[in-house]
Structures are given as C-alpha cells and as structure tokens.
C-alpha cells in the first residue's frame, strides 16, 4: 500500500462527493417536473414523445399500474432484443459477418441487458454485430438504467407523499430519466472518451501486420458511446470481451478515473434526490454515509489484500503485491479500487480479472454483491435496495424506542415488512440455491476452471453476480452452456424484479399512509447512530447468511494459502 494509492482513493471519494449535491439537485428538479437548464431544448422533445406514445403526462399511476407498466415495458424490450440477436446475421451493420446468436445465449444476453445486469456469456467482438451492440444492447443500457431510476423515484415518492394512491407515472419517470439525465451526460462523456482515444466508428475491423509479419485483426466499433452509458447506467457490459481492461475500452488513467467516478455518480446523487424529496437532505446524507462505511471497509480490505500479495509466491522469493490478472498500467490500487466500485455499484465492468485476485481481495467483490448491491448500487436500484434494508433496520430497532417503528413519519407495518423480507429473501435463494445446484450437478461442475475452494468461488460468484444484477464475472467459469445460460438468466430476472416490484409495493403502501410528525419520541434517522444501526443490520441480516458459503470458498482458500497449501488437484 502506498501513499499515492491512498491519495487516488481519497481523490476518487472527493470527486464523487462533490458531484452528489449538484447532480442530486438537478435530478430532483427533473423528477419533480421542475424547470432545468436543459428544459428549453429537451422539453419540446419530451412533449413530442408523449404525444407520439399517447401518454397523458398528468396521469399518475397506482403502484400496481406503475409496476405493470414497467413489466410490460421490459417484456417488450426483451422480445425486441432477443429478436435482434437471433436475426443479426440477416440484419444490417454486420461488417464482421457475425452469425445468429444461439437461443440459450440470446435468452441469457437479453435477460442480462433488460435487468441491467450485463452478464456476458459471450465475447462481444467475436459474437455480436454493430447493430446488436448499438440498437440492441446500448438501447437497453439506457432503458434498464432509466427503469431502475424510475422505481427509485417512485419509492422516494412513497416516503414523501401522504394519503395518496398514486406514485407518479412510470412512462414520465422513464422518459425523464433517459432524456434529461442519461442522454446528455452520455453525450458529454462519449466525446470525452473519444478525446481520450476510444474508437467510435461504424467501420469494419482493421487487419494489421505485426512486427513478426503475422496478420492480426483489430476489432473496432462504436466503443465510446457504449462505454459512456455502460458506466453511467451501471450496466457494465463491455464492448470487448476484456471489458475495461481492453486498451480501446479504457485507454488512459484519466479515462479509468472518469469511468470509476461515473459508475458512482448517479447512484450517490440519488441519496441526495431522496433527501431533497423527503424534505430533509440530511436523510440522504445518512444513507450515503452508511454506503460509504461499507464501501471504504471493502476498499481497505481489497487494497490491503492485493498489495500484500500471496504468501505462496512470497515463499518462493517473489516479493510484492498481487499483479496477476491486472493491467500493469492501472496497477494494484486502481485495479482494487475499480473492483470494489464496480461490485458495490452493480456495474460489473472490470479492468482486472477478479478471479486472479487474492482470496480475500476477491471475497470483497463477492460480499459487495451478496449484500444486494446497496453500496451506492445500480442507478436507482441501489437506493431502493438500501431503503428495503432501512425498512428492516427501522422495524427491528425502532421498536426499541417504545413506538411502533416509523421512518420519515411513515409507520412501518406488516405490509412493508412482508415486502421488504421478500426483497431480501430472493437474493440468498438465487445465489445460494443455484450454487448448491451447480456444485453437485455434472452440468454445473463442468463450469469452473479451478479445483477446490477457488472453483467453488467461481460458481458462487457467477450466481451472486447474476442475482445481484452486477454482471461482472470471476472469469475462470465457462458459462456459455445451456445450464449456466438458463439458470443465470433466471437468477437475473428474480434478482431484478423480485426486489423492484416489492419496492414499488412498499412505495404504494407508504404513499397511502399519513405522515406522522416527528417528536422527541421518534428517533432521528440522520445521525451516526442510525448509520451504525443500518450498517449493522446490513452486515448481520444481509451478510451473515453467506458466511457458510464464504467459509467454504475464499475464507478457506485464504487460510490454506497462509498455511502454504493449494488445491491443485481434485474438485
């Protein structure tokens, strides 16, 4: 660990924090329908879109209608994407002559992009046409992110409104999220990335003659535009198979830094949107503080573990940190930081191979996802996931002040607890359930490249990443099989919609309630006590469930490594 490393981490945190307020203010204005700096340009476009789609802007929806609209919208998006992937061979913009995507892979990939997971069982440059990338994937990158933001806004309205049946309009929230937030920012970012050296072309792949005289095909494409939304929308699906480790997808240190910042930007600012909309910005800061505590703990452990390196190599006289699977141009700190950010935020883009991290260094990304992607989390999804934990934390601890629990003046009762538990339950079911299945079925055991606990971690990581809608891979797992494509797709669907729909149900139930004014008897939810409580509940309820699995994966691997043992055979 070096001073310059810590400075990089501190700089990253400072820039993200600095963005929270301005971006939060802007997004609040967007979602409350107030005038923004971009309104003169975008408002006519927005109105035109509504007219085109026959949407009445003023018509608000009950939570069921809101959730229904969202589901219908995603089913349609899924069908379009599936169609494009299956038909890409006969569709235009296919200079590399890619064949049709196989049914199970197309199912997996469509699900993956619709659920904002962007798990990639395929190699982008060797599987997909430009049309599939741009019209299929990039378009879902925008819409799945916008849908997450819409759900978060709806949940926030549940807290901020009182005695009403409606949560706003899904169509309006979606449109505004994409049009006012994602699109303008992506335009700026795309230009920035092009300046940094990312390709942005519809031209064919380039053949180059190497110094040895061999021929090499260099894959190109509209990279910069996809990278912009991939990070900003916490999608993570890379244009190239190597994702952000590829020099074209991550050309410079500055591009790397900006990518890391944009992963967190909207998610972190959403806590401020929350605070502003409920009328007390401190509430948002408290949520962000809880996220920050968990994030920094992860960064410290991962950075320490990677910088410390592997005892087995030390024993052989190879001192220094663990550089296996890392781009030397990013080094240990930027790789470790990137890994924690991308898994904390449900992004899933990688600039290093998590599979090659040390046991503990690789465990942190795993834990980040197992907690449910609530450390900043996916755009919107992070906030609603976190608020589900808030409901549980408030319910347990709120009783201890001698009142039936309430948060922001809303009583937390049976219905909210039921929905929150449903949202919390589905993650261990998907993550542990499918891992348990894959760990004994031959089809599952065929996947991992390594034996012993590390192979187990590879399986666990895949299902964890899918259910948490992260999409990063531990590598090492051959996941493009019928078994993995199908089960991972199911995990992605459940992990997305069985959290999102309960979150909307909570929103609907809360919006219908009265807001109880705060008194000396209600405990303040903007202080350190609340932050500590929230972190404790997340770790104990969200994290401890995975302790047995972690013990059999990274923990035992780490302990064995300390003792100089490996698991080279068997498995």
């Amino acid at each position: 660990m070096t001073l310059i490393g810590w400075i990089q981490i501190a700089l990253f945190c400072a820039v993200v924090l600095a963005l929270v307020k301005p971006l939060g203010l802007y997004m609040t204005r967007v979602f409350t329908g107030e005038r923004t700096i971009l309104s003169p340009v975008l408002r006519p476009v927005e109105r035109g879109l509504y007219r085109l789609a026959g949407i009445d802007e003023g018509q608000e929806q009950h939570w069921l209608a809101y959730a229904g609209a969202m589901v219908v919208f995603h089913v349609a998006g899924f069908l379009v994407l599936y169609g494009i992937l299956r038909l890409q061979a006969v569709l235009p913009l296919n200079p590399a002559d890619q064949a049709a995507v196989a049914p199970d892979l197309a199912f997996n990939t469509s699900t993956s992009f619709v659920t904002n997971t962007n798990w990639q069982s395929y190699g982008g440059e060797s599987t997909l046409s430009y049309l599939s990338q741009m019209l299929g994937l990039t378009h879902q990158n925008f819409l799945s992110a916008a849908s997450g933001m819409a759900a978060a806004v709806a949940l926030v309205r549940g807290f901020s409104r009182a005695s009403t049946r409606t949560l706003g309009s899904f169509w309006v929230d979606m449109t505004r999220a994409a049009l006012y937030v994602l699109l303008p920012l992506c335009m700026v970012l795309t230009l920035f990335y092009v300046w940094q050296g990312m390709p942005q072309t519809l031209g064919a792949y380039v053949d180059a003659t190497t110094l040895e005289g061999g021929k090499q095909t260099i894959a190109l494409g509209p990279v910069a535009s996809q990278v912009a939304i991939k990070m900003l929308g916490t999608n993570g699906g890379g244009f190239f198979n190597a994702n952000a480790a590829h020099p074209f997808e991550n050309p410079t240190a500055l591009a790397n830094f900006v990518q890391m910042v944009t992963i967190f930007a909207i998610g972190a600012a959403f806590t401020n949107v929350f605070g502003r909309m409920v009328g007390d910005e401190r509430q948002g800061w408290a949520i962000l503080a809880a996220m920050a505590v968990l994030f920094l703990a992860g960064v410290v452990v991962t950075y320490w573990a990677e910088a410390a390196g592997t005892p087995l190599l030390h024993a052989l006289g190879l001192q220094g940190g663990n550089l296996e699977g890392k781009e030397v141009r990013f080094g240990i700190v930027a790789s470790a930081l990137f890994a924690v950010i991308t898994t904390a935020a449900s992004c899933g883009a990688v600039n290093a191979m998590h599979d090659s991290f040390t046991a503990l260094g690789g465990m942190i990304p795993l834990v980040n996802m197992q907690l449910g992607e609530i450390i900043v989390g996916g755009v919107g999804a992070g906030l609603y996931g976190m608020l589900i934990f808030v409901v549980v934390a408030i319910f347990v601890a709120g009783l201890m002040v001698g009142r039936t629990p309430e948060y922001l003046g809303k009583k937390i009762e049976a219905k909210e607890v039921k929905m929150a538990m449903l949202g919390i339950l589905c993650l261990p079911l998907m993550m542990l359930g499918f891992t348990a299945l894959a760990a004994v079925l031959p089809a599952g055991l065929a996947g991992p490249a390594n034996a012993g606990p590390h192979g187990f971690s590879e399986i666990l990581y895949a299902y964890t990443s899918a259910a948490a809608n992260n999409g990063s891979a531990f590598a090492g797992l051959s996941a493009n099989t019928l078994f993995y494509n199908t089960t991972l797709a199911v995990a992605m669907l459940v992990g997305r919609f069985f959290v999102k729909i309960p979150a909307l149900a909570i929103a609907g139930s809360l919006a219908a309630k009265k807001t109880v004014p705060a008194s000396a008897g209600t405990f303040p939810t903007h202080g350190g006590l609340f932050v500590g409580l929230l972190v404790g509940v997340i770790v104990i309820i969200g994290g401890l469930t995975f302790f047995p699995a972690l013990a059999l994966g990274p923990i035992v691997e780490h302990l064995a490594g300390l003792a100089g043992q490996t698991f080279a055979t068997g498995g």
Partner: protein
Amino acid sequence: MAHASQKSLLNAALIGPALLGAVTKLDPRQMVKNPVMFVVEVVAAFTTLLFVRDLVTGGQDLAFTGQIILWLWFTVLFANVAEAVAEGRGKAQADSLRRTRTETTAKLLTGAAAAPGGPRDAHRVVPGTDLKVGDVVLVEAGDLIPSDGEVIEGVASVNEAAITGESAPVIRESGGDRSAVTGGTQVLSDWIRVRITAAAGSTFVDRMIALVEGAARQKTPNEVALNILLSGLTIVFVFAVGSIPSFAAYAGGAIPMTVLVALFVTLIPTTIGALLSAIGIAGMDRLVRFNVLAMSGRAVEAAGDVDTLLLDKTGTITLGNRQATEFRPVRGVTAQDLADAAQLASLADETPEGRSIVVLAKESYGIRARDMAGLNATFVPFTAQSRMSGVDLDGSSIRKGAVEAVIASLEAAPALVSVGATARVLQPRLDGAAAQEIRAIAEEIAKAGGTPLAVARDGKLLGIVSLKDIVKGGIRERFAELRRMGIRTVMITGDNPMTAAAIAAEAGVDDFLAQATPEDKLALIRKEQAQGKLVAMCGDGTNDAPALAQADVGVAMNTGTVAAREAGNMVDLDSDPTKLIEIVEIGKQLLMTRGALTTFSIANDVAKYFAIIPAMFLAFYPQLQTLNVMGLASPQSAILSAIIFNALIIVALIPLALKGVRYRAVGAAALLRRNLLVYGLGGILVPFAGIKLIDLAVIALHLA
C-alpha cells in the same frame, strides 16, 4: 383482586401448572400459531425419527445426536414454559374473578313494576343467568348485582372490591355519570332499580376473565409484522443451511443431519420467537395489575404510540375542586370584615368551595367556626337562577356568588333596609365606582387562573374571595417527562380561555381547549388524527362516549356510564385519570421489550456462526480451525454448546420478557443508543462468553 396479586415474577405456585402447560402446548395445532417455534418442533420431531431409525439400525455418535435432539425439544419446551408462566399469572387473577361469578339470583320486575316509581314488591326471583338485555331487576341491600346494568332509579352504596380490589364502597345512582353497575358487585345499603345491559356470558367480568386468561388474545398488528420478519429470517436461514450439504459434497465431505439442524435452530430467531407471546401477555398483565383493563392488545400497542394526550382539567391536572386562596376587599373594607362575612355565608355551604372559605378564614384571620343555630341564621342555598348563596341573620343578609350575578342582583333590587325601629329607607343603588373596582379585581384574578366570588352584605359589595384550582403536586414534572417522551399534552376544560391559559401555564401542559363542549373534544381529536397523530384521552360521562370511541386510546373510568365504558378501549378500575401516563409507559415498554429481544436474538447469530461453522467443516477443511475464535474443545462440544446456549438463553430471558425493558423518558435517540448498546452489542458479545462457558462445562461433564 389486582392489589392483592402483586406476586413475584416467578411464583413457585405458578411453576408447576406452567410446566404442565408447556407440555400440552406441544400440540402442533397450537404451535403453528408461533411459526418460528413450530419450525423448531418440526425439525425436532424429524430428527427424533431419524434418531430412532439409527438406534434400530445402529448409527454413529448416537450419544451426541441424542443430546442435540434433547436440547431441540428443550428449546420448544422452554418457549412453551415462557408462555405458560405469563398466562399463569393471568389465570390466577381470572380464578379470583370467577369466584365472584357464582350463581346469583335476580329479582325480576315486570310490567308496571319495571318502570321507575313502580311497585317494588312485585318481583319474581329468577336465576341470574336467565336475564336478558333490557330486563329490569331490583337490587336491595345485601344482594349481589346479577349482571351489568344501568341504574334507572335509586341510589345505593356498592362494594366493587370484587373487580377493583378497592374495599371502600362507591355510590351508584340513576342519572348522571355514576349510573353503571357491574355484575358480581354487592349493594351494601338502600336499593336500586337496574336495567340489564349485558347478556349472560358477555358481562364485564366475563370479558375481564377472558382478557386476563389470554383467551381473547389476538395478535396485535405489530406482533403480526414482527412474526412476518421472524418467518422471513427463518426462510433465509433455510436457504443458508439448506445449501450447505451440496457445498460440502463439492468439497468432498458430508454433514450429519443433526448438525445441520443444530445450526439451523441456533440461527433462526428462537429467542424472540419463544418469548414473543409471553411479552404480549405480560404487557396486558402489567396493565391489569395497574387496575386497567385493555379490551385489546391493539389498544396497548397504540398507547405506546400516542402523540397527543387529552386530559380533563378537573381531577387530572387539578385537585377535584377549587379552593379559596385569598380575600380581596374593595376600598374601605378590611380584609378581616370580608373574611368574616364570607365565612358566615359559607358556614352552611357544604360544597368543597364553601368549606375551603371557612378554612381560609380560620387560617388567615383566626375566625373560628360559629354555630348557625346559635346565630339564628337561615341559610339561602345556591340556585341556578340566583347563582348565589348566602345567609340571613338578624335582619342582615350576606350573599356570595358569581361577580356579575351579585352585581346584577344589587342593581335590580335595591334592598329595603330598616334603620332603627320605624324608619325604612330605600338603600341607594349600587355605587358605580365599587362595581368598577370589583370588576377590575375579578378580571385580575381570572387572568391568574382563579375564579372570583363576590361577597355583598346588605346590598354593599365587600370584596372578592379568590377561588383557585389547585394544580396537583408533581404534575408539572409528569408533563415535562411526557414532553421528553415526545407526547403533547392538551388540557380540556370548561373554564373561560383566560382562566384556562393561566392553569395551563401553571401545570405546564402544551396546549388547552377552553370552554370545551363534547363536540369540541371530538373535533380536536379528529384534527390531531388528520395530522397522523395518535390521541389518547379518558372520560366518564355519556357525553364523552363519542370522543372516547374516536380516540386511539380511550380510557373509560369504571365509575362512568355504561355508554362511556362501551366506547373506550380500556377501562380504569380505579377511575384515576392520571393513569393515562402509566398506560402510555406500559405500551412503550411492551414495544421496547419486543424490539430489544429481537435485536438480541438476531445479534446472537454472529457467535453461533463462529461456534458451528468451523466445527461443521473441520473434517474436510482443517484450516477453518482458525475461525474457532472461542477455542471450543471439539467440533461436537462446539455444536452442543451452541444449541444448549440457544435453549438456556430463553429461560434466562423469561424474567425480562415478563417484567419488560425499563422505559426511560430520555428522548428517543438516547434510549435507542442505550438499548442498542445493551441488546445489540450485548447480543453479539454475550453468546461468545456463554458458549465458551457451556463448552467448558460440557467437557468437564464428558458430554461430548
């Protein structure tokens, strides 16, 4: 019953039936109401079956497996013991109540005899159980009142010790706010005509028995929500533990079923699951011991949530009646003169105000009581028309009364006063300056929260006696405490706003409602509720009934009318309105106890993971020994110690569940910090020590 039954928490006489009750509660149909413990029972039964199979076919580690199973059953039994002990305390009270419900006979009046004023001797003796709602019965001295009813004629002193534990008799009379009588209580003197208002089996005593026995117990909304949370956690642990065999198979090992079950049972929130219903029953029981009957658990819970407390001024904030505090003469009259006249006018006045004037005159001016007969005085009683009372003696007349009433009487009827033997002159009309002066004094007194009482002798104003509401000692501190709890207090009074404001300031309430009518009260409650607040109030009169029904917590006084008792969701047997404050505290205590034990239960899991996970996987991953931070002796002793701790902690916490976590009015943040420290951090640390100690004992006893 209540005062007599302040028993210790775990009375020896209660333990025996409780143990028996614990076994009968193993019936799955009863257990299913408690999802967490039901799950434990199911896995205990399942592993018992496996154990029996292994006994027959011969298996390994039978002694160890047997012990685990034994402790699984103990876990279930301990939970049942907790509930049975809590119920047992209520049962003892129910039994003493039931004794009052012995067969009574009733003197049924029919036809003309049933109407007030009808003949009393034309009654027919019928069994009390035959009475129907609307029947009219005669109850005479010595008779037990056969059922709940309303006095429609007569006045009687009634011994209500059977339900209130208070041996001093109370007066019950027709009309007014003291017309309700309760079945099972005894008329000591006189007779009353009673219209029956409750059918056999649904009388007040019947309801009380059902309540204290817990038969009428339904899960409260918060309990339902908590049960959902606990069930959810249980399912999470089904996934966490259910996936282990497959993980172990991947690693090349196998985990015995008993060990998996042990891990599962220690992880699921058994502590709170076991104690949840005991906490609820104990909360109701605590109210009963305070002589308050809650008609539902929901009401107790709502009490903890109360934001606004409506309190009647008289009897709650102030002592029942106004008392004289000062004599204020007009110019030209000495205070001694005024006191003398006021005392004479009050000698025969038996109202508390009147008596307080006599007392003040004696204490301040040494004017002793005089014999009315000896003075040849005639008392002029207060009437609603004159709004004055007084005395006529030796041709002189003294009047005291409301200031305006006295002034008006002097203006309207200038008195003929005899001067000497023959001359009779007309007394001049009221001196305007004196009236002005007296009004100024009156206003000054009213502003300070007092009630002015003008005194005039022979048509001449002497001055004013200031009567004041005496705010109860210590009430100010109580309100300050309530404010720290986050509860707003509103004083309800019929006084004018000026007086009300002064008393409100003196008592330290947050707000007041002056010149309140029942409609005003109801409107105020609705207004508060519209803001999302929960409102508590108490009342006794029939005109309080709508407000009592509207309030979230409506405490009816036992002395009140039938209508009031029906409308409230609690009845205070002592008829002490200040008890609202204790009721709120009991509600809060109930919720806090639930939260504290839930937190403790969940926090316990950390240590249990560290005890069982290394033990479980040690056979194939010996490296995991590092996680055995407690240094438990062997895998078997570790697992056994964890499950023993898990069972014993239930027993250890029964007293806390029954007694409740103490509520302190220190503000929510401080309270939460303290409880999180004790039950959260304590919940993480205690099991580390506990499991280690049990492990030492297990090894010493060679159990594993």
